[in-house]
């Protein structure tokens, strides 16, 4: 009885929303045309990277530029792989981005849960502080971090890159916004009544409820960590690079072979593009969700 009463208005609201969507205008041919142009602009540079990576340096310097694939792809990929040390770089990037992702998702969920559902002194102030710190640019931390890491003898080691990114204010806020709505307070109260400890509640109630948002935050964090540039380029050298640092060294080589550079760019982007093919829908949904609630 009570459950139907509780769900009825929500259902009605949802139905109205769907009716609203039904009233949305159908896209005409002009819309499809403009969208196609946008899509081409989005994809063309990536496709052309592959074309350029399959040519030779000399061919790329000629006019007109090549518009179709040549036969040098694998030779260039191999050269880029060797010259930039992309094997080490890929492994390093996987370790760095993987650790950062797991840690960010875990700690963001815990803190987000506390901010969304638990009552404690200063919670309001602390949440405002969290939101406020999203404005601090990373540049403001790099000089001290660099000095500390040198003091510790950690220059050029992976933990140097990992440690400062283990948590993000954005992640905490994102999980908080999600859990406010997605986690029924009654569920936590019921678990408390059964005498469940806070850790048990986190494990059996919060994590299951947060799973969709955790997945999305994980994907967003991985993309961010994989593409991070400023701090890795200061903290790491060519001896122990992440993918971005390795690509930078390819691009700043004194005798650049453009086809090899393009092969490197292709390799460096490929892991994320594959992830995008697999999880694109979730990433899109996550960005839209983060936007609508933020």
């Amino acid at each position, binding site marked *: 009885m009570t459950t139907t009463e509780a769900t009825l208005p929500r259902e009605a609201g949802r139905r109205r929303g769907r009716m609203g969507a039904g009233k*949305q*205008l*159908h*896209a005409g041919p002009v*819309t499809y045309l403009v*969208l196609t142009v*946008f*899509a081409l602009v*989005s994809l063309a*540079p990536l496709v052309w990277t592959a074309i*350029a990576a399959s040519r030779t340096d000399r061919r790329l*310097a*000629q006019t007109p*530029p090549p518009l179709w694939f040549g036969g040098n792809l694998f030779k260039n990929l191999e050269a880029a792989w060797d010259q930039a040390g992309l094997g080490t770089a890929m492994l390093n990037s996987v370790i760095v981005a993987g650790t950062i992702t797991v840690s960010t998702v875990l700690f963001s969920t*815990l*803190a987000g*849960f*506390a*901010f969304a559902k638990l*009552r*404690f002194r*200063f919670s309001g*102030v602390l*949440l405002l502080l969290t939101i406020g710190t999203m*404005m601090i*640019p990373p*540049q*403001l*931390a*790099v*000089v*001290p*971090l660099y*000095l500390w890491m040198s003091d510790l003898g950690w220059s050029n080691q992976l933990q140097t890159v990992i*440690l400062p990114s283990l*948590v993000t204010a954005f992640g905490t806020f994102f999980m908080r*916004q999600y859990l406010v709505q997605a986690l029924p307070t009654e569920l936590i109260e019921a678990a*408390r*009544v059964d*005498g469940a400890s*806070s850790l048990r509640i986190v494990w059996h109630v919060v994590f299951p409820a947060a799973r969709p948002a955790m997945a999305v935050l994980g994907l967003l964090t991985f993309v961010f960590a994989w593409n991070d*540039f*400023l701090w890795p380029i200061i903290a790491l050298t060519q001896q122990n690079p992440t993918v*971005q640092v390795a690509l*930078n060294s390819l*691009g*700043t080589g004194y005798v*650049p072979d*453009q086809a090899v550079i393009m092969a*490197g*760019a292709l390799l*460096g*982007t490929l892991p994320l593009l594959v*992830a*995008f093919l697999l999880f694109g*829908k979730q990433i*899109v949904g996550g*960005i*839209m969700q983060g936007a*609508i609630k933020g």
Partner: protein
Amino acid sequence: MSSSKQALAHPASSAEAAPGTTPGAARGARGRGGPAAPDSWRSRLYRWDMKASPYAFVAPFFVLFGAFSLVPLLYTAWYSLHDVQLSALDHQTWAGLDNYKNLLSSDFFWNALRNTLSIGVISTVPQLLAALGLAHLLNYRLRGSTAWRVVMLTPYATSVAAATLVFTLLYSWDGGMVNWVLHFFGVDPVNWRESDWGSQFAVSSIVIWRWTGYNALIYLAAMQAIPADLYESAAIDGANRWQQFRHVTIPQLRPTILFTVVVSTIGATQLFGEPLLFGGVSGSKGGSEHQYQTLGLYMYDQGWIIGNLGKASAIAWSMFLILLIVAAVNLLLTRRLRKSQ
């Protein structure tokens, strides 16, 4: 639409509720319905768990964030008042405001500030306008709507390094794709790397390419939250599509637009990877004539190429102050706008 208000309203209300009330204890007693003896170790443990666990849950975030973001922020201010050289890290001597005076009298600093502003404007404004239009189109009923969204977002998955390397080649003087296409329209080849506005435009286009789809999705999310009845009543009043967009969509989107403006401004102030890689070997200088040396590049150049970390700290703090000023101006402008309407 109301989401941002909710977000801001909640912390205040929870802060009000926090002191005084002890909901956990009351709830626990009610729920157990008697058998829990008030002083058993179990209930004491339970109460302690209720009190301490919120702090335990937020602690990792604040400890790590404090250690690696907030404390360094203060240390950067400290170092900016010292002479710290990369070559002699142990010899740090007090310099007072010398680093800042140095900056203010440096042409390169003002040049970098100007470049940051101009690149910021020519990358942010077209980007957000295009995103708005794109979101409007994506908001129609489309075949394969998810596929369109994923495609528009692919540039976001491309790293700064990869994207910039590709665009650098597209913009090259000889045999570059862009100049080749321009020649069909009868435009003379542009020296995208050396010319003033050409190089700034080239750097901006990388930013625009990577972020337009991302911003479009944010606008799309907000557009989908606009109640359909608003459009219905506008249609009844005889508003055409453009008038509906102008008088319903845009006003409803205002908080989201402000959000994206702030985020893009922050991004533009920190612009670093694109100009660095676009410049190739002379990357940290922002081109042979410093045409596109941004503040981010200037800091990197002074700190890690020239090796003056004290000055780099001063640049970092100047960037922060500029950001705060920009944010304040943003806030003032929106207040004005809201009042005038």
